[in-house]
C-alpha cells in the first residue's frame, strides 16, 4: 500500500501561476523559459519529508497551504523599520514592491549596480541571464529552490565591477506587511578584485494569518574578490521561511558571511559555500535565538572543490521556552582538493526545560592532505559560573545574562558592523528578559 502522508500536502501553486506572473511583468522569453523549467523540476520533486535526512527534524506540517499560497503584491508602507546607517546605498522592498532605492553617485559612477531585479531586468538583462539561478542556486537543489526559481517575486542585484573597492557599506531591507507568499531573491556578483560590504535584512510584524517566504541568496565571487555579507532574518512569528543561500568562490576569493536568524515561526535555511577556485577562503558565522514556538533550522555545507581552500564556520545559538533549533553541517572535501583547512563548530545553549536543540556535524573527506575538524555541543547554563559571579554581588538574573552574552561574544565579534552588533545585543537582551 503506498499511501501518501496526507499532512505533507502538495503546494497548491499551478503552472498557470508561473505564466501569469511572468506575463504580468512582461518578462523576456528567456526568463519565462527559465521559470517554466524550474516549475517542471518543482513538479518532478516530491515534497521533502521525515524520510529525507535534511528534513527529518523539520516538521513544517503546520503550514496552511491553501491560505498561504497566494503571491503578495505588497503595497503597504513599511513601519518600524530598523534605522539604516549605510552610506553607500539602500533598497527597501515591501512585499514585492520597491519603495525606496538609492545608491551613492560615486558608486554608480564606478559602475556599481545596486538595484531591484525588475530594474535590473530592464537595464542589465545580460547579467541576470548569465547568473540568475545558473551557477549558485539551481532549481535542482530542492523542492523549495525549484519553487523559488519558478515564482520568485522580487529581489536585488548587487554587482561590483572589476577592481572596484566599495568602502561604503550597502543595505537592503525586505518588509512584508501582509499574509501570503513572497519569494525574494538576492543576487550578488563581484568581478575580479572587487570588494564590498553588504547588510541585508528581512522584517515583518507578527500577523494572525500565516505567511510564507521562499527565498534565495546567490553569491558569486570572481577571482581575488572580497565580500563581507550580513543577513538578518527577523520575520514575524507567523512566517514560515525556506531559503537556499549559496556562495560560489573562485580563485583567491574571500567571503565573510554572517547569518543571523531570530524571527519567523519556522525557518529552514540551507547555507552552502562552494570553494571552487584554488586559494579561496570563507568564514561563516551564525547567530540565532529561538524563543517559544520557534524552530530555527540551519543546514550548512562547506564544499572544498579546489586545493588550498579554507573554510571556518561557527554557529552559536540559544533556545528558550518551547523553542527548537537544528544545525546540520557538512564539510565535503572533493577528490584532488589537497591542502584544505576546514573547520566547523556549532554550540547551542538551552535556556529552559522545554527547549530542544540538535547539532549534527559531518565530514566527508575524499582527499588525503587535509586538515578538517568539527565541534558541536548542546548545553545548559552551569551553576558554578553563576555562583562565581554572584559572589561578587551580581544578582542571579544579571549573572545569567552576562554569561549568555559572553557565550555569544565570540561570534558577535565576527560581525563587521558595530551598529549590527549593538542591535543584535539588544535583541538578545530583550529575549532574555522575556519580551518575545
Amino acid at each position, binding site marked *: 500500500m503506498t499511501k501518501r502522508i496526507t499532512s505533507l500536502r502538495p503546494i497548491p501553486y499551478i503552472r498557470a501561476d508561473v505564466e501569469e506572473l511572468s506575463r504580468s511583468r512582461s518578462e523576456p522569453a528567456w526568463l519565462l523559459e527559465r521559470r517554466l523549467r524550474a516549475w517542471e523540476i518543482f513538479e518532478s520533486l516530491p515534497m521533502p519529508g521525515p524520510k529525507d535526512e535534511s528534513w527529518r527534524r523539520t516538521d513544517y506540517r503546520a503550514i496552511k497551504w491553501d491560505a498561504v499560497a497566494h503571491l503578495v503584491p505588497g503595497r503597504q508602507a513599511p513601519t518600524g523599520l530598523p534605522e539604516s546607517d549605510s552610506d553607500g546605498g539602500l533598497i527597501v522592498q515591501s512585499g514585492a514592491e520597491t519603495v525606496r532605492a538609492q545608491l551613492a553617485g560615486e558608486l554608480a559612477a564606478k559602475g556599481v549596480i545596486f538595484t531591484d531585479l525588475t530594474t535590473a531586468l530592464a537595464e542589465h538583462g545580460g547579467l541576470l541571464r548569465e547568473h540568475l539561478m545558473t551557477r549558485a542556486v539551481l532549481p535542482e537543489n530542492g523542492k523549495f529552490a525549484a519553487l523559488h526559481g519558478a515564482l520568485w517575486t522580487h529581489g536585488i542585484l548587487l554587482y561590483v565591477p572589476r577592481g572596484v573597492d566599495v568602502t561604503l557599506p550597502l543595505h537592503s531591507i525586505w518588509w512584508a506587511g501582509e499574509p501570503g507568499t513572497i519569494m525574494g531573491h538576492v543576487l550578488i556578483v563581484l568581478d575580479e578584485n572587487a570588494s564590498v560590504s553588504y547588510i541585508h535584512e528581512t522584517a515583518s510584524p507578527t500577523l494572525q494569518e500565516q505567511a510564507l517566504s521562499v527565498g534565495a541568496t546567490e553569491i558569486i565571487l570572481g577571482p581575488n574578490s572580497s565580500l563581507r555579507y550580513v543577513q538578518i532574518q527577523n520575520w514575524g512569528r507567523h512566517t514560515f521561511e525556506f531559503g537556499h543561500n549559496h556562495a560560489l568562490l573562485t580563485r583567491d576569493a574571500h567571503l565573510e558571511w554572517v547569518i543571523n536568524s531570530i524571527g519567523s515561526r519556522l525557518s529552514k535555511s540551507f547555507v552552502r559555500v562552494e570553494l571552487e577556485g584554488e586559494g579561496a577562503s570563507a568564514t561563516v558565522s551564525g547567530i540565532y535565538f529561538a524563543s517559544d514556538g520557534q524552530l530555527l533550522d540551519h543546514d550548512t555545507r562547506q564544499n572544498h572543490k579546489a586545493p588550498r581552500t579554507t573554510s571556518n564556520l561557527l554557529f552559536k545559538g540559544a533556545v528558550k521556552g518551547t523553542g527548537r533549533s537544528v544545525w546540520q553541517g557538512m564539510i565535503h572535501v572533493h577528490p584532488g582538493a589537497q591542502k584544505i583547512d576546514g573547520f566547523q563548530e556549532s554550540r547551542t545553549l538551552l535556556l529552559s526545560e522545554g527547549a530542544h536543540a540538535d547539532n549534527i556535524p559531518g565530514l566527508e573527506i575524499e582527499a588525503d592532505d587535509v586538515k578538517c575538524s568539527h565541534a558541536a555541543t548542546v548545553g545548559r547554563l552551569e551553576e558554578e559560573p553563576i555562583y*562565581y559571579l554572584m559572589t*561578587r*554581588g*551580581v544578582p542571579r538574573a544579571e549573572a545569567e545574562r*552576562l554569561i549568555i552574552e559572553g557565550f*555569544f*561574544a*565570540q561570534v558577535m565579534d565576527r560581525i563587521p558592523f558595530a551598529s549590527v552588533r549593538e542591535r543584535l545585543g539588544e535583541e538578545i537582551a530583550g529575549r532574555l528578559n522575556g519580551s518575545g
Partner: protein
Amino acid sequence: MSATLEIRNLHVSVEGRLILNGVNLTVRQGEIHALMGPNGSGKSTLANTIMGHPAYIVEQGDILFDGQSILDLKTDERARLGLFLAFQYPVAIPGVTVANFIRTAINARRRALDPQDKGISIPEFRKLLKAKMDFLQMDYNFAGRYLNDGFSGGEKKRVEVLQLAALEPKIAILDETDSGLDIDALRIVAEGVNALAGPSLGVLVITHYQRILNYIKPQYVHIMLEGRIVESGGADMALKLEEKGYDWVREKYGNGAPQAV
C-alpha cells in the same frame, strides 16, 4: 564601627554528609586571620557556606554579619553586605571581559543602594580600574581579556586580587589562594593582599601550607580538623605547624571519619 563576621556553632552538610561540626570563629574588619588544616578538614566548605553556595546546607548554628544572621540571604546579597571570596579555582567566563564584569559588579552594588542609580560612568570606571591596576602593578591589558579564560594559575589569582581591590569588601576570604602558584606568583599575589590590608579590610586566609604566611602575616591562626576549629593562637602557631606538620593535631583531637547527618 568595624564590621564583624561571626560564625557560631556552625554545622554544615554536603550531599547528606556532615562536613562542619560546630565551627566558632569571629573575624573583624582590620584583622588578618589564617585558617589552616589538612585537606578535607572543611576549610573550603566553611568559605563557601559563608558565601551561601546552594550545595552547602546549614544544619545548625548561625553566621552573623554585624550581628545580623545572613543565612537567609542569597550569595549576591551577602557579597553586597561586604563579604568577598577569592576562589581556589576561579571560574572562566568566556566572552565577558574583566572590565565588563567588574563594572557590572560595581553597578549591582550601586543599584542595590539606589534602584534609580544609572551606574558608574565609563570614564569614571576606567579611572578607577586603572588606579587599582596601577596599585597592584598589573598590565592594563588584563582589563580587556575574557575573565579567567585561558589565564595561567598566577593570572587567575591576580585577577581575584584585582576584584578584591575594586569591590572594596569589608571581610575577604582567600581560599587556598597559594595553591598552584610558583613562588614569584605567590609573592606578587601576597603583596597585593598586603597592600589592601588595613583598618577597612578583614582577611581570612585559608591555606593548607604555611608558606603564604611568610608573606601575609596573620595576627590569629586557627587550626581546623574534622570540621571543627581545634586550636587558635598567634602567628607562632603557623610556625609550629610548619615544623611538626598536622600529626600532633590529629593525635590530640582526631576522631576518625566525619559522621553522617
